[in-house]
């Protein structure tokens, strides 16, 4: 597994004149799993996108192997996998076509893709259009790439959404295995992840309460 060294220093971000976080340091190395938690509106999604290099609307430094993220973005992008709220699954395509596109940044052999779909319990649905799948099934299409992309760093925003009990435990196993293999994971979830030993929590501030 390639070496992972993501550091964020003195992050400061405000939205609508409300400070989401200030003097925030985050660092991530091989074999670590960091769960960003906090109440609704705390800024978890914002922080995640910022660490993924998708948002530049903040102060502070994000470093990848000691270099500013923007200057090594292409290399960084090869090494990290980002999954946001939106799953990038096209409804007019079949699961296998979607997966092929989702993994096209890495050269993944074709039969690995089919295996991945079987792995997420979509065997038999490979050639069905995604618009005919249920909410959870569509989500699984997007998750299937966790099994096949070689990227060591995973950044996942609420990946448990819409999954059923089996799906949840499957995903937990995936996370755990990935971490054991030396990969690392940055995740937001309102779901408790206690089962994974190397879990680290990063608590974001509570939302400001207004007086009436």
């Amino acid at each position, binding site marked *: 597994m390639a070496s992972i060294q993501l550091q964020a220093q003195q992050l400061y971000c405000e939205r609508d004149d409300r400070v989401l976080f200030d003097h925030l340091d985050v660092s991530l190395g091989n074999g670590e799993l960091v769960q960003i938690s906090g109440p609704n509106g705390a800024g978890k999604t914002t922080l995640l996108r910022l660490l993924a290099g998708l*948002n*530049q609307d903040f102060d502070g430094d994000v470093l990848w192997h000691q270099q500013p993220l923007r200057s090594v*973005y292409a290399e960084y992008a090869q090494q990290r996998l980002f999954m946001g709220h939106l799953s990038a699954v*096209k409804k007019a*395509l079949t699961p296998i076509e979607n997966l092929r596109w989702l993994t*096209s940044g890495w050269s993944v052999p074709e039969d690995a893709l089919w295996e991945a779909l079987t792995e997420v319990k979509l065997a038999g649905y490979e050639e069905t259009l995604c618009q005919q799948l249920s909410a959870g099934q569509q989500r699984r299409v997007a998750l299937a790439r966790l099994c096949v992309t070689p990227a060591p760093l995973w950044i996942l925003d609420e990946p448990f959404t819409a999954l059923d009990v089996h799906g949840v435990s499957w995903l937990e196993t995936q996370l755990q295995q990935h971490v054991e293999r030396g990969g690392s994971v940055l995740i937001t979830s309102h779901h408790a992840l206690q089962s994974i030993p190397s879990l680290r929590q990063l608590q974001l501030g509570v939302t400001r309460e207004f007086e009436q």
Partner: protein
Amino acid sequence: MSLTRATLRRDFILVARNPGEWLNPLMFFLMVAAMFPLAVDQDPRFLAKIAGGVIWVSALLATLLSLDALFKMDVDDGSLEQWLASGESMFAMALGKALVHWCVSGLPLTLMSPLLAMMLALPDDAYAALFYSLAIGTPILSLLGAVGAALTAGLRSGGLLLSLLILPLYVPVLIFASSAVYHAGLGMPYAGQLGFLGAMLALAVCFTPLAVAAALKLNLSR
């Protein structure tokens, strides 16, 4: 590079699966052009005079309408986010998207134009000019349009706003192209106009992808 290629392939699959994507602009083109004789005057001599202009305006509007969805879907379903996350060159992506768009809108229009020319009684001499001007001009429309589409991709009332942004930019194309057709109809040379269109196309290929890329990156910090 691989993602760009995968995206091109995916877009063509999507088009193949939903033929409306290229049929609709074509039908719209035919319908708008067919509305003019109804609204104005059916006299063929009169129509002959306006045919070139009407066909070009219709082509322009058809292109415009089909631009709306160019990036919007990708923004809405998170594909663009994935694209940005991949760190690949935006320039190639922008160019590829414009190419797909042209294959879906400009190309069929160009191929169908003789039919419309016939219906609108375009002078025989002007057929070639119409065809060439569309062949060179519609890619410019796609490229310029991609800029507008990228700028309005994340917005609610995208379609109309997009039109507002790029209709003024389409004017030079419209002028040179319709003048080529008009002059051809009078038996005059029109190579000069086509030359200008060609020059504009070259410029557009070089520069619009930059603007598209910049505009798409705006969606980074949403």
